[in-house]
């Protein structure tokens, strides 16, 4: 277990190193931040001065080494746009994204798994076909379109929910449901197919031979086996939620990390972009690790040595 953990840690560090390098370069390729900070009429002297102030006059590789050195010491720099430490700026946005992401994930997992089981147990019925059609629709519609339609119907026409912003639970409903559509459909489909496969397995036949009650067969044996691929997919979907959050937060003006990242890219706020992406990378790596641990809990065949 310890060696497994160390192995994963080493891989994680390599990945994180790669991510910092890529983002560092990509952010600089997106354009020069200095021009967003000085007046259009500013002379060369003023531009050079600003560049010196931001330490952007040095060669890029030296900037990178300096950045990595600071990050290693826990210094993530200051936001150019907000003139405050990056950690502060990200910290206040991240809890909004966690709130949104967890709400969406909870909806996606609970609805996805229950609909998947229902569809599998009523294979070929109207319920099964309706659930599958719904899943295809949910997976084919882009988040921004679902979001805009939701705003149009529930905020503008029906006036049930606020159009955008955050603060009350009503503000959370539409963005969370919009964000949940895709992972819910994906989880539902894999639960259904995995459940069908398990219910056809020989060991399920043997459970029937033993005379066990159907509910025991389905809930104790088949479901636990069927959940193995569902857990894998759910982990991936939780990671994908962050990508979806960038769009959903923009559509609903939800003041989260995704929204902050878009703003920062537009204003070329390098320190925020770098740290934001780093944060997301660390989150995804941790998530993958946790998913592997969950496997170990569900499946006795998996032992990390």
């Amino acid at each position: 277990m310890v060696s497994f953990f160390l192995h994963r840690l080493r891989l994680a560090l390599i990945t994180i190193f790669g991510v910092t390098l890529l983002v560092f370069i990509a952010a600089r390729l997106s354009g020069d931040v200095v021009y967003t900070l000085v007046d259009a009429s500013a002379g060369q002297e003023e531009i050079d001065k600003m560049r010196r102030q931001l330490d952007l006059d040095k060669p890029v590789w030296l900037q990178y080494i300096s950045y990595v050195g600071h990050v290693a010491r826990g210094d993530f720099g200051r936001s150019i746009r907000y003139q405050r430490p990056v950690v502060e700026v990200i910290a206040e946005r991240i809890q909004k994204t966690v709130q949104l992401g967890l709400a969406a994930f909870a909806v996606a997992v609970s609805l996805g798994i229950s609909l998947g089981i229902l569809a599998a147990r009523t294979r070929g019925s109207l319920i099964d076909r309706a659930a599958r059609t719904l899943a295809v629709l949910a997976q084919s519609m882009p988040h921004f379109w679902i979001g805009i339609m939701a705003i149009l119907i529930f905020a503008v026409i029906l006036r049930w929910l606020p159009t955008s912003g955050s603060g009350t639970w009503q503000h959370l409903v539409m963005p969370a449901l919009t964000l949940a559509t895709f992972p819910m459909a994906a989880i539902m489909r894999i639960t259904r197919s995995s459940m069908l496969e398990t219910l056809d397995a020989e060991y399920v036949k043997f459970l029937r031979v033993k005379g066990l009650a159907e509910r025991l067969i389905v809930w104790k044996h088949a479901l636990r086996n069927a959940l193995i691929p569902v857990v894998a997919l759910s982990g991936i979907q939780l990671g994908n939620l962050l990508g979806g959050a960038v769009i959903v937060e923009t559509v609903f003006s939800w003041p989260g990390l995704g929204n902050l990242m878009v703003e920062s890219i537009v204003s070329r706020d390098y320190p925020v972009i770098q740290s934001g992406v780093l944060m997301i990378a660390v989150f995804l790596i941790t998530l993958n690790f946790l998913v592997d641990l969950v496997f170990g809990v569900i499946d006795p065949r998996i032992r990390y040595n």
Partner: protein
Amino acid sequence: MGGTSTKDGVLLEVRDLEMSIFADGGNRIVRAVNGLSFTLRRGRTMGIIGESGSGKSMTSLSILRLLPRGARILGGQVLFDGRDLVSLAERDLRRMRGRHIAMILQDPMVSLDPLYRVGDQVAEPLRTHQGMGGDALRARVIELLGAVGIPAPESRFNQYPHQMSGGMLQRIVGAAAISCGPELLIADEPTTALDPTVQAQYLDLLEELQQRTGLALIVITHDLGVAARLCDDVIVMYAGRAAEKAPVRTLFERPAHPYTQALLSTLPGRRAPDDIKVDAHKRLPTIEGQPPDLAALPPGCPFAPRCPRADAKCRTEMPPEVSLATDHSAACWYPTT
């Protein structure tokens, strides 16, 4: 159960059993079992032999009414201790499964849930049917594991299926099957998935269990050696029908049905009667031709297309079961007598 039958009485009587599988939304009807009848007495062993697709496994699944998707029992009766399982309510039937009638599936490697300890899986029928629990249950399971020849049963209890060999798993499956002391045990190809050295040990175990508990056995196999070794009586199945029924010695010594004769002559070292066509030039002899498509059975004897004795009558009229001696019958117009 009833208790009215004597020890040598009839335990299972299958009468005119018909089972079909409706595939492609009912467009293709596979007639898996076609009017099968046989009787099994308490404590005896019946072998059902035949090629793959002859309806052996479907017969055993029909007895327990654990049918594959799309399959339906269309007719007949399965009388177990006098009760017809075909018309029994699902709830009552479930109480029979694992308690009075047990079954061992073909492949022990996939017969157990990989996520639960083997001890718990052996315990399940006892928990369900006899309401056992706690230390008594654990002790009983360990006793059962010992009874099927598992060394160090206390420590094996806590192991998972993937930690055991195929032979060990087959014993675990056996322990789960006999846990509630069933009167009938159906073993579907019990040794096919096992190594040859383990096969013999497992057959020993089945015999020993039968002697100790007096249960009746149905052994489904395509292995004539297994049948010869274990069975009192044998049914040779072909295309979902009984081609021949006979006590095991009679079957091997005086087979009456051309199919049985052909089947026996495929055994290394045996010769076919002169008129039975077997491709003996191959290193292992085979019966020429293919078994019929169960979704498009010919009107007459299903073996007629491969049978050297077949004439016009065989191809148009289904042969009835002809009694040749006590307990010996063949479904053939021209049986060897």
